[in-house]
C-alpha cells in the first residue's frame, strides 16, 4: 500500500512492455511489475512537509550562518550567478575589453538587477520569498531592517506562518529550513528559485548571464558582436559550460542547483538577444550610447569585416554603403538601442551587416544560378585578354575557393561539435544518495576515455585555439590567387549617364510579403530548396561565419529588400491588381 503511494507519481509507460505498473526496488528504483524491467529512474523524494513551510523561508541580516555538516556553507543562487558574471567579465577583459566593462558597467547592471528583482540593495527585500543577504561587495546594504510584509503579501500566507515572520522567530525557523532544503539543493534558495512565479521578475538563467555581458559590451560599444561573443563561449574563451567548477569549495551544488547552473546546450543567439532586450527594459535603462558611423557595430564597418572574411572584393564596400544609406539603416536613431521603445525594430548588428552584403551580391550578380555564371564567364574572358592591371572578379573562381574552405571548416566544426566534452572533472550529483553511483560512473568514463584515447592515435585535443575574430583568412600575400580582395568589379558595372550602375537590370525578391514578426516570430521563412543554390551558398557562408541558422540572415535580407524596394513593390502590386480587374 505504501509502495503504491510511492509509485503513484511515476506514470510513464514501461519501455519494455508499455504497462504502467510500477513498484519500487529496495534501492529506490522503479521496476515494472508486469515484466520486471528495472528502470534507472529513482524516486525523487518530495518532502511535502517542507513545501507548506517554504514560504517562511526568509533570511535575516547578519553574518553568514555557520557551516553545514558537509563542510559547505550557506549560499544563494544570485551569489552563484554573480560569481559566474565575474568570471565571464574577467575573461572578456582578458580578451581585450576595457576594464570599465567589469568594474563599472556590468557591476552596476547587476546591482540594478538585484535591486529591481528585490534580491538585494533594497529597503525592503522581497518579503514573499527570499532575500539574498550578502552580495559580497556590500553586505552592509542589506542589513537594513526587514519590515513586516505588506498586507497584500500577508494574504498569501496562512496565519500561523504569518506569525512566524517576526524578527526573533527567523533564527529558529532558519535552521529548520536549511536542513530540509539540503535535500533539494545546496544553495539556500535553489528549490524556491525554480518554483517561484517569476512573471513580473526576470529570473536569472545561464543564457541570461551572457545577455548581461552583451548588454554591457553594447553599452560600451565594444567592437564585439553577439555572434562573436557566443562563438567565444563555445570555443571556451568565456566560461559558461561547467562554470560552477570555479565556485569555491564551500559552495556545494546539488539537487535543484543543477537545474539552474548546469547547462547542457550552447546558448542560442535569439534567446540571448531577446533576454538582453528584456533585461534592458526590466532595468529601466535609458537610451544606449549612440552607434555612429565610427563605431564598430555600424553596418558600414561590419561590412568591411565580413567582406574580408567572405573573401569578396573591397570594391563591394562602396555598394554596401550605398544600400545602407539608401534605406537609412546607418542612421544613429535606427542603430541605437532604446529599451522599451516598441515602435522601432531592434537591430542585430552582425546579421544586418551580413544581410546587406547578401543584398548587394543579389543586386550585382542576381544569384539566380544563371546570371552570376554568365558574368563569371565574361570576366574570365576578359582576364584572359587583359594581362596587365587588376583582375576582374570571377564569381566562379570565388565560389570554388570559398566553397572549398567553407566545406573544410564546416567539417571541422561539425566534428568538433560531435567531439565536444560536456562534463567536467567535478562530478555533480542530484542527492547524496546517488553520489557513489555518480562517482563510479565518472571513474568508468575516465577509464574508458583513457583506454580508447590510446587507441585513437591522435593526441588528446590540443590547446584551445587562440581567440580570433576571423574564422576564414585570406591574404593577398598568397600567390595562389585565392584572395579576391583586390579584384575589380569593372566587368559587371556599366557607365550610364556618368553613373556606374550594375549591368544586371533585374532583381528577384526573396519574399513578396513580410510576416508579422511579433505574431509569427519571423519576418520571412526560409526553405533551402525554394531558392537558387548560389543564394543558399552565400547564406550558408554567412551562417557559418555568424554561427546562426541561414534563415535568420534570410529574414534580414527580406527586411532590407523590402525597405529598398518598398515603393516599386507597392506600385507593382497595385498594377497587378489593376490588371486583374
Amino acid at each position, binding site marked *: 500500500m505504501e509502495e503504491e503511494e510511492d509509485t503513484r507519481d511515476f506514470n*510513464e509507460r514501461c*519501455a519494455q512492455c508499455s504497462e504502467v505498473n510500477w513498484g519500487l526496488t529496495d534501492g529506490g528504483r522503479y521496476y515494472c511489475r508486469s515484466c520486471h524491467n*528495472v*528502470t*534507472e*529512474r529513482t524516486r525523487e523524494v518530495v518532502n511535502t512537509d517542507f513545501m507548506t513551510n517554504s514560504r517562511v523561508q526568509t533570511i535575516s541580516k547578519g553574518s553568514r550562518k555557520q557551516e553545514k555538516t558537509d563542510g559547505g556553507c550557506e549560499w544563494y543562487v544570485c551569489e552563484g550567478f554573480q560569481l559566474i558574471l565575474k568570471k565571464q567579465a574577467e575573461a572578456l577583459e582578458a580578451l581585450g575589453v576595457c576594464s570599465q566593462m567589469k568594474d563599472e558597467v556590468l557591476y552596476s547592471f547587476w546591482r540594478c538587477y538585484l535591486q529591481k528583482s528585490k534580491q538585494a540593495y533594497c529597503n525592503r527585500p522581497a518579503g514573499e520569498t527570499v532575500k539574498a543577504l550578502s552580495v559580497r561587495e556590500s553586505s552592509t546594504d542589506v542589513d537594513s531592517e526587514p519590515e513586516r510584509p505588506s498586507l497584500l503579501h500577508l494574504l498569501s500566507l496562512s496565519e500561523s506562518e504569518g506569525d512566524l515572520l517576526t524578527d526573533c522567530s527567523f533564527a529558529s525557523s532558519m535552521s529548520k529550513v536549511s536542513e530540509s532544503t539540503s535535500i533539494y539543493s545546496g544553495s539556500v534558495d535553489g528549490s524556491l528559485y525554480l518554483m517561484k512565479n517569476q512573471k513580473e521578475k526576470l529570473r536569472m538563467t545561464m543564457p541570461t548571464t551572457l545577455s548581461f555581458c552583451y548588454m554591457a559590451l553594447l553599452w560600451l560599444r565594444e567592437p564585439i558582436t553577439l555572434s562573436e561573443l557566443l562563438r567565444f563561449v563555445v570555443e571556451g574563451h568565456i566560461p559558461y559550460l561547467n562554470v560552477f567548477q570555479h565556485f569555491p569549495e564551500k559552495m556545494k551544488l546539488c539537487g535543484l542547483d543543477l537545474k539552474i547552473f548546469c547547462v547542457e*546546450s550552447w546558448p*542560442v543567439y535569439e534567446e540571448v538577444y531577446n533576454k538582453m532586450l528584456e533585461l534592458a527594459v526590466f532595468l529601466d535603462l535609458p537610451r544606449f550610447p549612440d552607434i555612429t558611423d565610427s563605431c564598430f557595430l555600424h553596418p558600414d564597418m561590419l561590412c568591411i569585416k565580413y567582406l574580408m572574411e567572405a573573401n569578396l572584393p573591397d570594391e563591394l564596400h*562602396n555598394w554596401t554603403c*550605398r*544600400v545602407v*544609406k539608401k534605406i537609412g539603416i546607418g542612421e544613429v536613431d535606427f542603430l541605437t538601442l532604446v529599451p522599451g521603445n516598441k515602435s522601432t525594430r531592434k537591430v542585430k548588428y552582425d546579421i544586418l551587416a551580413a544581410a546587406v552584403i547578401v543584398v548587394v551580391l543579389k543586386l550585382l550578380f542576381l544569384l539566380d544560378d544563371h546570371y552570376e555564371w554568365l558574368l563569371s564567364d565574361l570576366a574570365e574572358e576578359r582576364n584572359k585578354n587583359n594581362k596587365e592591371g587588376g583582375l576582374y572578379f570571377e564569381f566562379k573562381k570565388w565560389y570554388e575557393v570559398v566553397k572549398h574552405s567553407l566545406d573544410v571548416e564546416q567539417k571541422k566544426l561539425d*566534428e568538433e561539435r*560531435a*567531439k*565536444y*566534452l*560536456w*562534463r567536467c572533472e567535478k562530478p555533480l550529483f542530484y542527492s547524496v544518495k546517488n553520489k557513489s553511483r555518480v562517482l563510479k*560512473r*565518472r571513474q*568508468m*568514463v575516465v577509464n*574508458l*576515455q583513457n*583506454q*580508447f*584515447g590510446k*587507441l*585513437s*592515435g*591522435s593526441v588528446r585535443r590540443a590547446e584551445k585555439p587562440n581567440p580570433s575574430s576571423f574564422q576564414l583568412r585570406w591574404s593577398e600575400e598568397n600567390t595562389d590567387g585565392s584572395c579576391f580582395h583586390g579584384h575589380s568589379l569593372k566587368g559587371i558595372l556599366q557607365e*550610364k*549617364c*556618368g*553613373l*556606374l550602375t*550594375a549591368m*544586371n537590370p*533585374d*532583381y*528577384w*525578391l526573396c*519574399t*513578396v510579403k513580410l510576416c508579422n514578426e511579433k505574431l509569427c516570430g*519571423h519576418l*520571412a*521563412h*526560409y*526553405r533551402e530548396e*525554394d*531558392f537558387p543554390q548560389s543564394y543558399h551558398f552565400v547564406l550558408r557562408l554567412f551562417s557559418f561565419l555568424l554561427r546562426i*541558422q*541561414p*534563415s535568420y540572415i*534570410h529574414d534580414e535580407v527580406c527586411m532590407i529588400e523590402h525597405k*529598398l*524596394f518598398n515603393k*516599386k513593390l507597392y506600385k*507593382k502590386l497595385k498594377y497587378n491588381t489593376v490588371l486583374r480587374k
Partner: protein
Amino acid sequence: MDSFLEEEEDEEAAVGRKRSPAAPAGSTLQPPLHLPFLPVLLHQPASSHENKVNFKKSKEACLSYIQDAMLQKQWKRAAEFLTFYVESLEKDYSREPISPSEMIWRIGTEILCHHSHSSMKEFNCFVEQMKTLGVKRYLKVCLEHVFHLLCNGQIDEAYQNLSLAESWRFGEQTALQDKEMKLIQAYRGLLDYYSWSKQKNVLLERGLDGFADLSVEQEMHSCFRKAAVNLKEIIKIPGVWDLFVKCYVDLLEFYGDHNEARQVLNEYAYNSKFPANPNAHVYLYQFLKRQGESKKSVISALKILHDIVPSHELMIDFNTMLQKSKKRKKRRLGLEVIFAALDYAGWKENVKAWSCLARQVKQIVISEKHLDWIKQEWNSRKDWWPAFHFSRYLAKRNWQENKNLSYEKALVAGILLGKDGKYFKYVSHQGCKAQVKRFRILKKFVNRRNPVYLRISGLSDSSVQP
C-alpha cells in the same frame, strides 16, 4: 509623407535624366543607387526550423561519426570518437531503446576486436568494466567475452569465465536472464565435451599400445557426465542447437546409448516446436545410416530434407537410393528429386547430378514406360531450362571444360529437346568430329528416339491421337 517625397526625388536623381549626374545632394562621391526591375512573378518561401546544439545532439552526431568510421573500417577514428561518446554514460537515457552503455559495449568490443593495437589484456579489461555497467545484460556480456576468448584460443580462460558466470546471482536479474544462463551452461558443456574428446583420443592412442591409464579414463568419464547434463538441458528448449546436438549424440553413441541418441535426433528433427532446420534431418539421416537402419526410415528422413532444401547435396544419394527401388512411386519421386536439384544454379555443372538424371531418363525412354513422368516434370521447366542449361554458349563451354558433363547433358537435352536442340546439336557434332565413340552412339540413340521428344514436348499429341 515627407520621406516618401524625398525618396521620389532620390530615385529621379539616380536615373539621372532630369538633373546633372553630379548633383545629388548630401552624398559626397557616391552616386545614389539605381534599382533594377522586379520580376513578373513573385514567390513566397516557407518556414525553417531551429537547430540547437546540446548534449544529446552532440552525442548523437558523435555516434553517427563512429558508425561511419566503423563501416569504413577506420578503427582508429572510431576509437577517437568513442572517447568522446563515453560521456553519455553519465546521463540517464533509460527511456531509449538502446542505452548508451549497450552502445559502448557493442562498439567498444568491435573496435577492440579489429584495432591493430589492441591486445587481449586490453579487451579483458574493457569487458570487465562492461560487466559492472549493466546488470541487465551481464550474462550476455559474459557470453560474448567467452566467444572472444575461444576465438583467440584461450580455452581455459573461457571455461573459467563460464563457470564464474554460472555462479552469478543478482536477485531477480538472474531469473530474468534464464535463457542466457542456459546458454552459458550449454557452452560450458561444450567445453567439457571438448576435453572429453581430447582425453578420449589420448586413451585410444595409448590403448593401441596396450597401456591404459585409469585416472585419465576416470577424468574422461567425469567430463562426459558434466557435458551430458548441460547439453541435454539446452536441447530440450526449442531452438537451433546443431553444435550441441552433434556433441551430445557423439557422447551417447560412444557410450552405446543408441536409443537415447535416436530419441534426441528424432525430437530435434520432428518436434514441431523447433524451427525448421535442415541439419536436424541430415544428422538423423547420418545416424540412421551409421546404424544401418531400414531403407524406409532413411528415405523418410531424406524426403523431409528434400521438402525443406531441394538443392541439398544429399539429394544425389537420395536419388540413387530411389532409382534402385522396386516401387514405382519411389522411382517417380527420384525423378522429381533430381529434376528439382538441377533447378538450382549450384548444381549446373555437377556431372554426378546430370548423370543421375541422364541414367533415369534413358531408362524410362528405353522402357517406354512412364514417359508421362518426364513430360510432367518437363512441363514446368520447358520455358526456362533451355536457356538455363541448354544454350549454345553452355554447350560450347561444357564441351571445352568437361567432356563427361557435356555428354550427360547432351543425352538429357537430346531427349527433352529433340535432335535439333542447340545443345545436343553442338555437342554431338563436336563429338562426331572428334571421333569419340560414345558420342556417335549417343547421336544414333537420340535420332532413333526422336518421336519421344515429340511426345514429351506435347507436339505429337494433337497429330497422333486422332
